[in-house]
């Protein structure tokens, strides 16, 4: 017998009856193909929502990364605090007087201290116009920007003037003081970050200024200081009783 015949015989010996094999195979393939087609269409329908979800997730991840990055940078990075708003001179001028005038029947409070600012009158000069008092202002810690000082008669409300160094604002008049012609300003301004007249023994800045009150003043002064303390608007007033002029 030939090899071909032997091989045919060998495999036919183990070949079972295959009745209906063709129909069985075709039908199964057909059924399986339908299932796969349904699955494919289902996945096609899902593709758009899945893509949408993927985009949303991607955006969320990017947003989280940006926000998280900024948070981490905020935690570990150098802290940058925005500088406090420093008021202009006009803003300080527009701040109102904090207290009412002192009635004639009331006694004049005598307080040189107003928060971080202390005033110490030292010498007096007199002119045809009025009385001038030179004193020093000692500034405590925490002050920044311009510091404005205004003064008025606490009983009549007549405002005082400032001459010489640190006098600022509008000129309201002139006078001859100790033989020297001076301009009278309505306020004094200290630059707290600038160079003071001197530094006291504990490192505080000392500014020297001269204020004047017109003859006829009651002897009860009210002065008000406006500026910035620890980054916030600061304003205080104080009183000083002196001899009436």
């Amino acid at each position, binding site marked *: 017998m*030939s*090899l*071909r015949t*032997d*091989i*045919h*015989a*060998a*495999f036919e*010996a*183990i*070949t*079972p009856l*295959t009745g209906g*094999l*063709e*129909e*069985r*195979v*075709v039908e*199964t*393939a*057909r059924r*399986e*193909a339908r299932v*796969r087609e349904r699955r494919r269409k289902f996945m096609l329908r899902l593709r758009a929502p899945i893509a949408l979800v993927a985009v949303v997730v991607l955006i969320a991840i990017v947003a989280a990364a940006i926000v998280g990055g900024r948070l981490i940078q905020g935690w570990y990075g150098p802290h940058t605090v925005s500088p406090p708003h420093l008021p202009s001179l006009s803003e300080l001028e527009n701040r109102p007087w904090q207290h009412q005038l002192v009635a004639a029947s009331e006694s004049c409070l005598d307080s040189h201290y107003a928060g971080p600012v202390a005033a110490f009158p030292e010498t007096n000069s007199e002119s045809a116009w009025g009385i001038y008092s030179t004193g020093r202002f000692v500034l405590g810690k925490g002050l920044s920007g311009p510091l404005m000082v205004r003064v008025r008669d606490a009983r009549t409300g007549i405002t005082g003037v400032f001459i010489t160094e640190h006098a600022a604002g509008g000129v309201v008049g002139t006078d001859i003081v100790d033989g020297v012609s001076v301009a009278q300003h309505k306020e004094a301004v200290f630059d707290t970050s600038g160079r003071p007249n001197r530094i006291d023994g504990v490192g505080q800045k000392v500014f020297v200024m001269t204020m004047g009150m017109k003859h006829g003043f009651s002897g009860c002064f009210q002065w008000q200081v406006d500026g910035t303390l620890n980054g916030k608007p600061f304003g205080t007033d104080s009183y000083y009783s002196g001899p009436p002029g």
Partner: protein
Amino acid sequence: MQQVAEVRALPVSEETFADLLKPLVEPGFKLALAMLHDAQAAEDAVQEASVVAWHKLGRMRDRGRLRPWFLGVVANKCRNARRSKWTAEVHIGVPEHVSVVSSEEMSVRGADLRRAISRLGHDDRLVVALYFYLDMPLEDVAAVVGTSTGAARARLYRAVAKLRRGVAIEEAIR
């Protein structure tokens, strides 16, 4: 292995598919049986190949090449089936003792031959099954295997030499 000329998918109706597939089931089953020596595993292989055919049929430009292409798919399924541990352990062919205890010479010769074929490598076994059992010309065998006719002939020579030492090869392969 299979070089299928594929073009834009064309819709194939179920009737067309059935008409095209039915003539291929029997040769596919015979090939799978010769490769696996197990009727159930052979039917499974043909079944899986049929599902593949359903999806790929619409892309076939040359329907005349359907038969060798389908048999190539079946051969691949058989290769995968034999690779699985389960098939290797359970469907490895006729036990050794069959050739010893059988009283019928034909049966013994058949069992020996099947065992010898099962020991061939996949490609050798494939050319033997296609040429000797499915009676395909060498050109078609080459198309299924995916080689030239000369290469298919050379492979067949080597396979026959392994099967039966001393057999007249020229006589066997005509």
